[in-house]
């Protein structure tokens, strides 16, 4: 199938020139759009959602405060429910929530099993059987007493990672992955298949899980238990990977991965620039994170690496000409959504109006977390994307589309 052309369910926004008559074919009997005081439905630019979500994930990385983290989850839930489309990949947010819960559970389990020690001031919960290790292996303890503090600190730590995962999940849910592919620089054509698979595999997985589960339900198969899990996992993985590959092949056939008119020399220059740039980025990241690394390895290496990468993308992109059919417009709502996300991240990094310690409430000794007003407002501000973005579809047009989609798949 391998269609890059969006089907009816992923109706693109109207072009910049045409007046927006609502997405797709207007339902019969409604000549003029009756907005009823509401804004005209339109799909937000995928990059706007990605900027919003990545900025929120950056903001999350700053805090360990469970109140703020739960608030982020609530805000993500609200924005996703309010502004997701009816596309197949847009119903998968709950799977990201499951993944997040798994992350927290694994973190807590590991903290309990690989004991990090208990202090006399801690609140003892229970003791796991202790497996003694020889002296030369000191440093890793297996089993032993487990304290409430240890579990809580593991849980909040896991919750932070879970929140970041959910941010990415929200971006995958809200933004159309196929339209997001179009904004990638043309120079990435060397990596055409890899990039396509990388970007689309998560939404495809969600789609596959839903399809396989539905098929099992229709065949009255067991939908719970370990055997059912095996029956779901294998076809889902196979299906998702195959569909991603088919999408990549489809994009290939439409010229996405074509080498164009590149000469051997220009291709080598591009490759060298990209490789050097990537090395620079790696060295820069290492230098920034390791305080003992020499100074030139930090920001300078990062800057040089970024410049080389941009240069490589430029020279690579110059020989690939691409035309865009029905471009996604970037208008005020896009600015607003991306802006609220970036602003909330900036507020959480600015340390203005609150004590930085409030972002990381103490667990040793245990104390109630506080709710610093500025970060709270920043997260709520990111939540305004839920009504700053235009509604994605006309609610009343949905049932028709749903049946149509069911017929096509």
């Amino acid at each position: 199938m391998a269609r890059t052309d969006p089907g009816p369910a992923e109706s693109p926004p109207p072009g910049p020139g045409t007046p927006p008559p609502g997405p797709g074919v207007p339902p019969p009997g409604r000549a003029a759009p009756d907005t009823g005081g509401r804004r005209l439905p339109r799909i937000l630019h995928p990059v706007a959602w990605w900027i919003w979500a990545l900025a929120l994930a950056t903001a999350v990385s700053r805090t360990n405060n469970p109140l703020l983290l739960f608030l982020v989850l609530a805000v993500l839930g609200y924005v996703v429910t309010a502004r997701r489309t009816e596309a197949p990949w847009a119903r998968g947010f709950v799977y990201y929530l499951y993944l997040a819960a798994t992350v927290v559970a694994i973190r807590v389990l590991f903290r309990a099993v690989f004991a990090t020690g208990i202090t006399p001031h801690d609140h003892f919960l229970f003791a796991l059987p202790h497996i003694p290790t020889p002296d030369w292996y000191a440093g890793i303890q297996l089993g032993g007493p487990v304290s409430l503090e240890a579990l809580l600190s593991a849980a909040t730590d896991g919750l932070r990672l879970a929140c970041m995962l959910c941010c990415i999940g929200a971006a995958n849910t809200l933004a159309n992955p196929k339209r997001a592919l179009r904004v990638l620089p043309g120079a990435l054509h060397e990596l055409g298949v890899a990039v396509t698979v990388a970007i689309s595999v998560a939404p495809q997985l969600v789609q596959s899980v839903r399809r396989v589960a539905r098929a099992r339900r229709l065949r009255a198969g067991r939908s719970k238990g370990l055997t059912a899990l095996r029956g779901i996992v294998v076809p889902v993985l196979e299906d998702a990977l195959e569909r991603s590959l088919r999408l990549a092949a489809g994009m290939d056939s439409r010229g996405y991965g074509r080498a164009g008119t590149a000469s051997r020399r220009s291709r080598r220059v591009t490759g060298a620039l990209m490789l050097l740039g990537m090395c620079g980025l790696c060295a820069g990241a290492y230098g920034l994170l390791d305080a003992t690394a020499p100074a030139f390895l930090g920001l300078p290496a990062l800057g040089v690496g970024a410049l080389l990468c941009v240069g490589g993308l430029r020279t690579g992109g110059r020989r690939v000409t691409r035309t865009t059919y029905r471009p996604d417009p970037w208008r005020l709502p896009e600015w607003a959504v991306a802006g609220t996300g970036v602003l909330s991240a900036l507020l959480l990094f600015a340390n203005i109006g609150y004590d930085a310690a409030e972002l990381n409430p103490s667990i040793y000794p245990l104390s109630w977390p506080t709710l610093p007003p500025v970060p709270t407002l920043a997260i709520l501000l990111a939540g305004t994307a839920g009504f700053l973005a235009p509604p994605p579809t006309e609610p009343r047009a949905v049932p028709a589309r749903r049946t149509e989609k069911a017929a096509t798949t």
Partner: protein
Amino acid sequence: MSVPPSRRAARLTAALALAFAALTTGAAPAGAAPQPMGRCTTGSGAVLAVDFSRWGGPIYRSCGSTPTTGYELLNQGGWRTTGTGHDGPAFICRIGYSGYRNGTQFPPPEQDDCVLTPPASAYWSYWHAGPGADDWEYSQLGAMLYKPKPGSVDLWIFGGTDIGGTQGRPQVTPDQLRAHNTRPSGGGEPASTARAPALPPGTDTGPAPVRTEPERPTSPTAPEPPASPSPTASPSPSAGETGEPSESAEPTGSAEVSPPATTGPAGGSGGDTRVVDAAPAADAKHDAGSMVPVAAGGALVLLVGVAAVFAARHRRRGA
């Protein structure tokens, strides 16, 4: 597909109740004991020294009965540590003494948030000197695993080292910090009997106690020769006012402050760092905070959740 809301709510309530109980109840006492400094001799007791000079403070030293662990020494008699969120309590990220600046733990949260492992350029490094040793040895074990020998000195300094511990070595010598009296002095009751609470069952606290020497309190006939009329450390948690190094604050006259702290041998290679004895003190009062922000946060999360449910309803109604 999902847990029924009533059960989920019940679970949540149980978890909250547990957390609440933990925050409101105390812990039971017993364990390795803090001692006044005079009770440490050249062959018994372990000396703990912590260098607060980075924050304008002195080097505090105190004494604890052996067998103990480096961690227990650092968490009794008014001492308290904080671990990191990433590594747990075993990684010493902050150290505080209730007699110094009201028990504030250093480095303060503005300097290190203690979420991830601190950088090797700014952390509490751990040094040992065995009985009679002239030089410091960089600890190859964590505080929870290391068991100080009787008569040894444990030193914590803040700064940077390399992995082998060849750089960033302490400026003081072990001799400036160790106990020089051969017999315990300053007997009687310590200022505070606050000690670490009992460890939970199954905690590895090392070999059984081996008493080499009767630890009977001898009469305080030979007090340690006071080196100089010196600043006195006030172990009372209320004495140290904020921002004021506590050794300059006068004792508030509370009965707890019985053994006057003495300076150790001043001078030497240590330059101007003062060594102040830290008597066992009560733990600094810890304020668990109020529940109001939690309630407010919960209400806010609930509000946004209701908005999400409303949005979902709206969608379905429109569909």
